[in-house]
């Protein structure tokens, strides 16, 4: 019995003595833990840990990793606030600058007007040119030739970029006025013009049916019923003209949505032309 008691007392004591002699909260260990979290993709907690030691260690790698972490988390504004503190003599300045441009694009989706910096190497310069060129697609005053627009991109990218150019220059919009005029001439044809075939055919059938009922009742001298059908028919007719105009507007909103969505997907696939930073090798 005594032996057991002794062993039970000695084991925790020995463990405790080891743990107290080991400083889990040293700067180096916090950094190691933060690096581990960063490589696991747990950016939020990695950034928290880096913040604990960033001021003390004054390490530009940590600063860039915090910026990258915020950007990965979708906190682009916070990421760019970190960039404001990055020293322009730092080895990571050019990368941080590119990352800040990506963040800028994700915050506002507008033209990047910033100029290049001398510390760019050739790859970074290419990334910068591609990013600023593609950002032109977000500008309302888009005025550039196709050749000039697609020239910074490689062959594989040029197909996609070229289709975005076409979408921007000549978006396949439908005219709301034309849709309204079509529906005024033949009920439902404005909807068909917008691609809403089912709605268009329904509008044609309903309006024709009420027109026929009104005509037939007038012929049969049932004037009350005839006027009711005339009124209903008129409302369906006018409602269809109105609906065709709004359908064309919704169609155009869909075109804009698909353009922006496609562009965003393309940029995400290309990582906004930024290099993949691997700190976890």
């Amino acid at each position: 019995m005594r032996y057991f008691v002794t062993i039970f007392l000695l084991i925790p004591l020995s463990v405790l003595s080891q743990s107290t002699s080991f400083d889990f909260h040293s700067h180096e260990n916090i950094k190691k833990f933060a690096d581990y979290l960063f490589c696991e993709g747990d950016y939020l907690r990695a950034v928290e840990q880096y913040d604990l030691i960033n001021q003390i260690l004054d390490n530009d790698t940590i600063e860039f990793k915090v910026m990258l972490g915020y950007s990965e988390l979708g906190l682009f504004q916070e990421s760019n606030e970190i960039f404001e503190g990055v020293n322009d003599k730092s080895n990571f300045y050019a990368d941080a600058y590119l990352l800040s441009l990506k963040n800028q694009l994700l915050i506002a989706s507008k033209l990047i007007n910033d100029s290049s910096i001398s510390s760019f190497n050739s790859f970074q310069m290419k990334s910068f040119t591609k990013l600023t060129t593609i950002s032109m697609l977000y500008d309302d005053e888009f005025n550039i030739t196709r050749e000039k627009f697609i020239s910074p991109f490689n062959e594989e990218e040029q197909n996609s970029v070229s289709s975005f150019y076409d979408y921007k220059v000549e978006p396949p919009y439908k005219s709301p006025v034309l849709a309204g005029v079509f529906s005024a001439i033949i009920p439902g044809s404005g909807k068909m013009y917008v691609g809403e075939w089912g709605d268009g055919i329904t509008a044609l059938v309903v309006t024709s049916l009420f027109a026929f009922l009104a005509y037939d009742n007038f012929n049969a001298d049932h004037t009350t019923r005839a006027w009711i059908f005339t009124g209903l028919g008129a409302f369906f007719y006018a409602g269809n003209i109105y609906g065709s105009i709004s359908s064309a507007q919704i169609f155009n909103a869909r075109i804009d949505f698909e353009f922006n969505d496609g562009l965003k997907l393309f940029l995400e696939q290309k990582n906004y032309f930024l290099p993949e930073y691997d700190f976890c090798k």
Partner: protein
Amino acid sequence: MPSKFNIFLVLILISSSAFCQIENLKWQKADPSYEKPTKQAHRDYSFEADNAGEFIAKSLTNAYWFFISDVDGDNCPFHPSCSSFLLQSAKETNIFQASLMFFDRFTRDMNIAKGEDHYPRVSTGYYYDPPQNYTLNQGKIKYLPPAFIVDDE
């Protein structure tokens, strides 16, 4: 003098009986409601309106709800329903424009091939079709793809 074993036994029994009561509370018979929540439950039958047009729309809608819809059941495949669409349209625009919007919506409702790939869905399964998209104000249109599921608030 009770033995140590007896004291231990009593302690164990007390704790187990206490936990047993807690478990009983947790697992006791429940009375769940199997009634499907309907749109009717949230209807506002008041005649409150900001203007004459809205009052007309509200009166027509209330009459339709009271005499037809509440009796007939929840049949409109859209969210908001066609009657609510008229009301909301009257709030957004005016009674004349709201009438046109309503007749257009009614035509779209009659379309038997509304299709899975046209409207986004509300989480309850209805087609999501808000009047804001039909006010002819391009800035108010919020396009959502058909695959999108809207939260039913």
